[in-house]
């Protein structure tokens, strides 16, 4: 399944790589604009509660999802809007969820940090650090029996690598050759704490060796690099050869959550990161590759129009339905 976007690049650079990059640029931009709009909605008090944006990290979901198929199951963390969008969840239904609308993917029950949209292969966010890793292994286990040939992918932050459940999931999947891909979104911070101070060796991909499985580190700001690494892992998973750890190196350009004062940043850190962030890099590559500034602008405009429309529709929707709030506790 390629990343879903309503915008098909008008005049992408020549060749399949160029076309792929243009598509991925559009998909990343779509996430970026979504997140930016959410940030505004949060500040405006339209979205309420803790929100974790993936601004700067968009290449990971976009690249990873491009290497998967529709039948596969994907599990993310609370920082999951980008993953859902990459899976094809309509922006309107996602806006609706965060706005607490009836039209939200979970009718407002999940919220920013814990929604799911399984019909798009998005098996959900998880707000417990590491909580999704064993569940993803279980999804891969299911594929053992159902003949679907499906695999699973779970994404989590580098800080989650210190959580017991992730360790257990890695070993469980390795021992039984489960078709699951463990994607580490390494943005260098565990909330407000530099993760390098919480581990001895911050090359976390190397921990794969402890479980006897392959591990790789790639540029998490390059969607094609992520796609290729995940594609390799996916091939292995689908062939019954078990799990892979894919560590993707990135930077979060905003706070851990909206409102984070970011006192932990080094001088100039975010400014430097903004120079190498995925949209900047992809935009330059597209222009370098021969895409015209006009075509690019057209692409941007069309993505922005889509997001605007989705936001407007979501804002206009009915609030979550309080009359059914007690339903669906049990079958």
């Amino acid at each position, binding site marked *: 399944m390629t990343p879903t976007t309503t915008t098909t690049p008008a005049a992408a650079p020549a060749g399949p790589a160029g076309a792929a990059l243009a598509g991925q640029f559009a998909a990343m931009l779509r996430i970026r604009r979504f997140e930016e709009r959410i940030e505004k909605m949060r500040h405006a008090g339209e979205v309420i509660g803790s929100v974790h944006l993936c601004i700067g990290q968009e290449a990971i979901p976009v690249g990873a999802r491009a290497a998967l198929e529709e039948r596969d*199951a994907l*599990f993310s963390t609370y920082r999951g809007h980008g993953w859902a969008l990459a899976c094809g969840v309509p922006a309107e239904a996602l806006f609706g969820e965060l706005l607490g609308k009836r039209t939200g993917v*979970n*009718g407002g*029950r*999940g919220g920013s940090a*814990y*929604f*799911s949209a*399984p*019909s798009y292969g998005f*098996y*959900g966010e*998880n707000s*417990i650090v590491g*909580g999704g*890793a*064993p*569940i*993803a*292994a*279980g*999804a*891969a*286990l*299911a*594929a*053992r*029996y*159902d003949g679907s040939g*499906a695999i*699973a992918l779970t994404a989590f932050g580098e800080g989650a690598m210190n959580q*017991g*459940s992730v360790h*257990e*999931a890695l*070993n*469980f999947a390795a*021992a*039984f050759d489960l078709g699951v891909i463990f994607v580490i979104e390494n943005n260098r911070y565990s909330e407000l704490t530099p993760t390098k101070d919480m581990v001895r060796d911050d090359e976390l991909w190397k921990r794969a060796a402890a479980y006897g499985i392959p591990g790789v580190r790639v540029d998490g700001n390059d969607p094609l690099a992520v796609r290729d690494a995940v594609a390799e892992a996916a091939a292995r998973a689908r062939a019954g050869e078990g799990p892979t750890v894919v560590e993707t190196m990135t930077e979060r350009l905003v706070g851990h959550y909206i409102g984070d004062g970011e006192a932990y940043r080094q001088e100039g850190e975010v400014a430097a990161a903004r120079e190498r962030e995925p949209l900047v890099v992809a935009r330059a590559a597209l222009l370098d590759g021969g895409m015209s500034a006009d075509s690019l602008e057209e692409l941007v405009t069309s993505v922005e129009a889509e997001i605007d429309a989705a936001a407007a529709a979501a804002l206009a929707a009915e609030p979550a339905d309080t009359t059914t709030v007690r*339903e*669906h*506790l*049990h*079958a």
Partner: protein
Amino acid sequence: MPELNYVSAVNAALHRAMDEFPEAIAFGEDFAIPGGVFTASKGLRDRFGERVFDTPISEAAILGGAIGAAVRGRRPIVEIMWVDFFLVALDQIVNQAANVRYVSQGELTAPLTVRTQQGVLAGSCAQHSQSLEAIFAHVPGLIVGLPATPQDAYDMLLSAIAADDPAVVIEHRSLYFGPRAPVSVDGPIEPVGGARVRRAGEDVTLVTWGAMLGAAVSAAEQLADEGVSVELIDARWLAPFDTATVTASVEKTGRLVIAHEANVSGGFGAEVAARIANEALWSLEAPIVRVGLPDSRIPAAPVLQRALVPGAEQIAAALRETVAVPA
């Protein structure tokens, strides 16, 4: 009807579930090839092959693995060897499994069953002796049952497995190798829920569940000899809890004793008492009395355990105290 002891009844139910639910899979520590440390899963691996397997000592992976498989169409049956071990991975059942259906508005479901066992057995240490049903019963979204007889070990496990929601079935080690009893093994699978009046009576209601049923029966018999008629209710399921049966009984007897092996404070007996103090207060002719482990950690030496763990004697004393209150 085959004559089965409790653990063989569990085993029979597991066989039937694997047979009737092609989507069922089953796993746990020492579960498959060894057949379970208490033989509960004997023969499953031979019969059902790869659908039954052993796991690493990784409770979070077992429970999380069950959830992931469940949301993708399987019906996992897993074992947590001791309820105490649940505590290394409670997140997976409370924060994860219990939320699946509700948060997704029913788009996802987690039809999984966790079998575990609990309680004090002579010599068992403090980390292998707790009765923790109250924790699970405080988690909306879970089904919680404690079978007390071979028939219920069979029936309730099947009901839990057939239910399309996460269920925790808590067995008790002390029951596994108890007496055999005829067990009906070809009835339909009942939905979860429903208490059983194990003994009808007029003077006082005794509510219990799990392994305490045996002691409760003895106590009721003692009291019968003393001319007191005890209505003994085996709650069976704490979630859903059959309040109506208890209320109806208390309305008749006017007196209520609740007995469980778990610590008294915060035990599920409190919930039963609270419901009755709300729904049937005017029927009460005596204070509600709870019998349970006094609030203590649990020592290993059998002589010390006997000094703490309540049994027929403590229940009988509570019944006597309750019926002695003038109407």
